[in-house]
């Protein structure tokens, strides 16, 4: 009996519904395309990307999200859009709270506050290159990763409660980082209104030894070098120069967040009748933001979000320790300063102007990044006049980007831009495509060192499985949803 990992039926059909061109990087799914749509769907893509998007079922999900009660303006999708569950990945939807707008756990996903952070270093590319093999091994030894691998720190339920209430500020007090790390984290790593009291015992149990673990799938720690600077002034303000070594960390809220989403989805499904909600996908189950269930979900989701920021903070601590060991210098001497940390799976209550009126909205970003424009009070003081830093990880062979939020994003997408490259190939197809090849050797030929735990980690996450991040970033930049600061090339990566 073939029950191997490599089989798999081909992917289901693509999207054959209406998709109207608005301009060179915007497409519309008109609101009469599907029954129940309350607003249009808008997809950001150019000619190259739209062909890939049509082959995927994601546009159908953009239309489904347009059915959410209280949705404002449009159901949006960024150019890294691909088929997800409930929302598409790359999805953005804002609902008007006063008009009965809903919150949907499917608009955040299981990995609540999955996100990325970027660290600068005092190292030059030439200095790190000869020791990359050893550096990556040292990072791999310091950072717990892979399926079922527990953290190096275990927290009691009382400490977990503190982590959920306060986020990285709590773990920094315990010695996992520097006070300035907190200042350079979105929302200072602590969403107000977190309510650890509504988080289930089961979620606490799943989180217990997972704070400070990378996980598996697309999560990673990557050592990079800045290869191109587009905005020298902004780069200088963020301490970035061409040839500098940087570190990127991608992880989320681990089992705790997954359980919060699971619990909440069940709760939402059970009250759909009570609120007379009918939605095209069970995974979109929702409740009004201003309802006992809406408040309960947001209290638990914010707790998981704060846990995720603390998780990336402890991972940062491990990475700093690994660098200090490798180079025989203190982590302060090596720099390892946090540029910024962004969430890309989250729901937030924000005020935005819609048709000349200031509205209180519940903004769902599912595989999308907040990109507030210059002057916004939620941006750290030292970057405020520049705009919010936005970190875009690409695949492990091509590149990653640092961007800044813009006025255009504020006007058009509630201050939101893309979150990565976006997958284009299924995990099964990627394994099939890697047959007879060594992805490790292919990366090595490009000068990239990889260490990984899962047997198929490199095959599933190979560069060809992703869209070209350069094209994705080009689209958001042309659409005015972000502006480019610099690009980083991978030198070494660890995967779970």
């Amino acid at each position, binding site marked *: 009996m073939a*029950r191997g990992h490599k089989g798999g039926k081909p992917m289901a059909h693509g999207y054959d519904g209406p998709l109207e061109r608005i301009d060179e990087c915007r497409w519309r799914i008109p609101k009469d395309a599907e029954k129940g749509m309350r607003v249009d769907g808008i997809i950001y893509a150019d000619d190259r990307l739209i062909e890939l998007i049509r082959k995927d079922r994601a546009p159908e999900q953009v239309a489904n999200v347009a059915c959410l009660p209280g949705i404002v303006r449009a159901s949006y999708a960024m150019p890294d859009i691909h088929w*997800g569950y409930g929302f598409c990945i790359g999805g953005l939807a804002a609902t008007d709270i006063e008009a009965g707008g809903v919150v949907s756990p499917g608009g955040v*996903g*299981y990995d609540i506050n999955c996100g990325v952070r970027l660290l600068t270093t005092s190292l030059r590319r030439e200095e790190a290159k000869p020791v990359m093999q050893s550096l990556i091994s040292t990072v791999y030894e310091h950072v717990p990763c*892979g*399926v079922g691998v527990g953290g190096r720190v275990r927290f009691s339920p009382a400490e977990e409660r503190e982590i959920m209430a306060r986020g990285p500020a709590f773990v920094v007090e315990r010695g996992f980082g520097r006070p300035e790390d907190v200042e350079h984290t979105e929302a200072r790593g602590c969403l107000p209104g977190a309510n650890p009291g509504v988080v289930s015992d089961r979620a606490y149990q*799943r989180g217990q030894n997972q704070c400070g673990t990378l996980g598996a799938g697309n999560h990673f720690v990557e050592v990079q070098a800045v290869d191109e600077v587009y905005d020298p002034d902004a780069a200088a303000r963020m301490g970035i120069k061409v040839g500098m070594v940087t570190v990127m960390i991608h992880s989320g809220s681990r089992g705790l967040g997954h359980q919060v989403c699971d619990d909440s989805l069940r709760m939402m499904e059970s009250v759909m009748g009570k609120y007379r909600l009918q939605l095209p996908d069970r*995974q979109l189950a929702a409740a009004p933001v201003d309802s006992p269930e809406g408040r309960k979900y947001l209290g638990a989701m914010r707790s998981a979000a704060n846990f995720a920021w603390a998780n990336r903070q402890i991972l940062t601590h491990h990475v700093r320790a690994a660098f200090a060991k490798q180079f025989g210098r203190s982590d302060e001497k090596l720099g390892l300063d946090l540029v910024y940390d962004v969430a890309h799976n989250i729901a937030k209550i924000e005020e935005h102007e819609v048709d000349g009126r200031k509205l209180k909205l519940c903004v769902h970003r599912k595989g999308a990044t907040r990109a507030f424009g210059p002057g916004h009070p939620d941006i750290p003081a030292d970057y405020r006049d520049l705009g919010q830093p936005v970190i875009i990880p690409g695949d492990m062979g091509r590149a990653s980007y640092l961007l800044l939020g813009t006025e255009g994003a504020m006007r058009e997408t509630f201050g939101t831009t893309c979150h990565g490259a976006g997958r284009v190939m299924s995990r*099964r197809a990627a394994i099939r495509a890697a047959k007879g090849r060594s992805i490790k050797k292919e990366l090595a030929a490009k000068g990239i060192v990889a260490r990984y735990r899962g047997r198929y980690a490199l095959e599933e996450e190979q560069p060809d499985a992703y869209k070209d991040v350069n094209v994705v970033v080009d689209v958001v930049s042309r659409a005015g949803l972000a502006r480019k600061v610099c690009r980083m090339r991978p030198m070494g990566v660890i995967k779970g």
Partner: protein
Amino acid sequence: MRPFEITDHTADVGITAYGATREELFANAALGMLSIIGDPDTVAAKDTREVQVQASDPAALLAAFLGELLYLLEVEHFVFHDAVVETISETEVRATINGEPLAPHHDLHTEIKAVTHHGLRVEHVGGTWEANVLFDI
């Protein structure tokens, strides 16, 4: 009849499971999920756990049942080998789970974050039970 098939998805992985009975459908769905996480041949049935799960309808019940196996793995570090369904109704299932404590030789390669409800389906079609489940990877 094949116990299950793996189905493709751009970011995640799914299964279509089959069974002559509802009991067999649930047991086969568990096998399908295990084949995504690791190599089933490396897991032995040395120990057991009893699980009891309730949900609002048959599809949600299957998702909750599979979620329970993920919980055993993540929190109790118990890898399941197979499930023997003792009793099952539309909204409740009781099963004995055979497996063993998690060890390095299991070489689990894929972390399933959760059992999603996207496209979740349990149906009795032409005398056969069929289910679609998508996992978040």
